[in-house]
């Protein structure tokens, strides 16, 4: 109980059932905590219920059972707007979340909802666009932007609101590699600079690798919770969790098939490189290792 103050989000025994789906629940008995300033990744294959979970956190779905507490406010129909004020969310499809007719109008949308005076909106919009590097595009219409640029505008909308928590709901999955990297780099910077708590729902192994902790959701249940290195160590099983197998794990498996035994556990690329180099050069420098009796 003394730890209560430390958690920015507490989810207890959460369940949700779609109104038209008779058979099974989209979420069932999910409980976890999020610490302030933490980067939490939520993974799971398509249809596992992870997006439902994200929406439930923001009060966008009327969950059937359980409690959600955000910044010590218990989520109820009465407190939903207080909860939402603490959370910024970016969704998958860049086109379906762009509200404004131009970039600056879109960034201002959330501020208008908070009824900020116009002068303050102008300074905040300008600063937010500057932060994500979209100042040049302030007057552009969304149709003239790439998917990556649209997501950066969405991020600017959140920077302008300065929430404590950022939820990325597969926000990079429709972007090309350049757009994805640019977006991730920005989120990393914001996470560091502003002590933003980041919850990223993702299939992308690089995005998951940024996390302090990974939750694995399958069929509406929380099935695993651990640090990335421990999750990544599961090799081929990661595919079932909706993640790609890390390159080092693929290489390790391929080496194993060829009679070479790599070190156990997850290796970063640096570790793998180091180990390979050691193994190759050790022997070429000292052809025969002295064998112990």
């Amino acid at each position: 109980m003394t730890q209560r103050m430390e958690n920015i989000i507490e989810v207890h025994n959460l369940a949700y059932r779609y109104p038209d789906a008779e058979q099974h629940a989209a979420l069932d008995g999910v409980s976890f905590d999020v610490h302030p300033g933490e980067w939490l990744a939520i993974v799971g294959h398509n249809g596992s219920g992870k997006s439902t979970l994200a929406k439930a956190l923001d009060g966008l779905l009327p969950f059937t059972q359980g409690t959600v507490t955000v910044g010590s406010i218990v989520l109820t129909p009465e407190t939903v707007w207080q909860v939402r004020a603490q959370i910024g969310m970016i969704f998958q499809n860049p086109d379906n979340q762009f509200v404004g007719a131009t970039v600056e109008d879109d960034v201002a949308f959330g501020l208008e909802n908070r009824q900020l005076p116009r002068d303050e909106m102008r300074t905040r919009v300008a600063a937010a666009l500057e932060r994500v590097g979209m100042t040049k595009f302030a007057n552009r219409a969304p149709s003239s932007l790439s998917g990556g640029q649209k997501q950066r505008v969405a991020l600017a909308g959140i920077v302008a609101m300065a929430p404590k928590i950022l939820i990325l709901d597969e926000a990079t999955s429709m972007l090309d590699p350049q757009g994805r990297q640019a977006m991730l780099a920005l989120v990393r910077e914001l996470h560091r600079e502003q002590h933003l708590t980041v919850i990223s729902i993702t299939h992308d192994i690089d995005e998951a690798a940024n996390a302090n902790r990974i939750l694995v959701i399958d069929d509406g249940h929380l099935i695993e919770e651990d640090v990335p290195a421990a999750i990544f160590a599961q090799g081929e099983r990661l595919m079932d969790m909706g993640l790609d197998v890390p390159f080092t794990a693929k290489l390790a498996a391929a080496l194993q098939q060829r009679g070479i035994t790599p070190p156990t556990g997850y290796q970063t690329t640096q570790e793998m490189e180091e180990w390979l180099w050691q193994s190759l050069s050790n022997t070429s420098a000292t052809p025969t290792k002295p064998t112990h009796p």
Partner: protein
Amino acid sequence: MGGNNVANHKLKQEILAAVLAALTIALSLMIVIPVPATHGMVTLCEVGIYTSAILFGNPVGVFVGGASGFMIDVLSGYPEWCLFSLVIHGLQGLVVAALAHRASGVVRGLVLPMLAGSLVMVVGYYLATSLLFGWPAGLASIPGNLIQVGFGLVVTVTLVASLTRFNPKLSKGMIR
């Protein structure tokens, strides 16, 4: 945690109307079918308005009608018509949405309401054109508009049939 649903439903309906108006505008600007018989053109404006009105009723119907009527004229360079179109297409959407009732069969539930809406449109433009450019111009507008609404009616009937088949929610009127 279910209490937020009323506001939610209202917003959903507003956004649905806005996106359907966008769809109607996009279709009208993009797809222009030449009619050899009258040397005129047919657009899909009616299909958008009628389908929205039938599936979602009012106020979606009246908004899609009015907004798309207005914006199509502004976007395609005939702003002199935009206020007339706002009223005429708005009324057209209103009438179809108010009369349509899918439970009472295709003819009585769909076709008759659309005929009423079509009458509003043809008469409306006759009056507006006559007012602007005299009765001969008004008369000249009638054949083209008749083909336009007729085409819209035919496409709408098949489209509504398809859409309701896929989406049980639509056929039960749950979204409405």
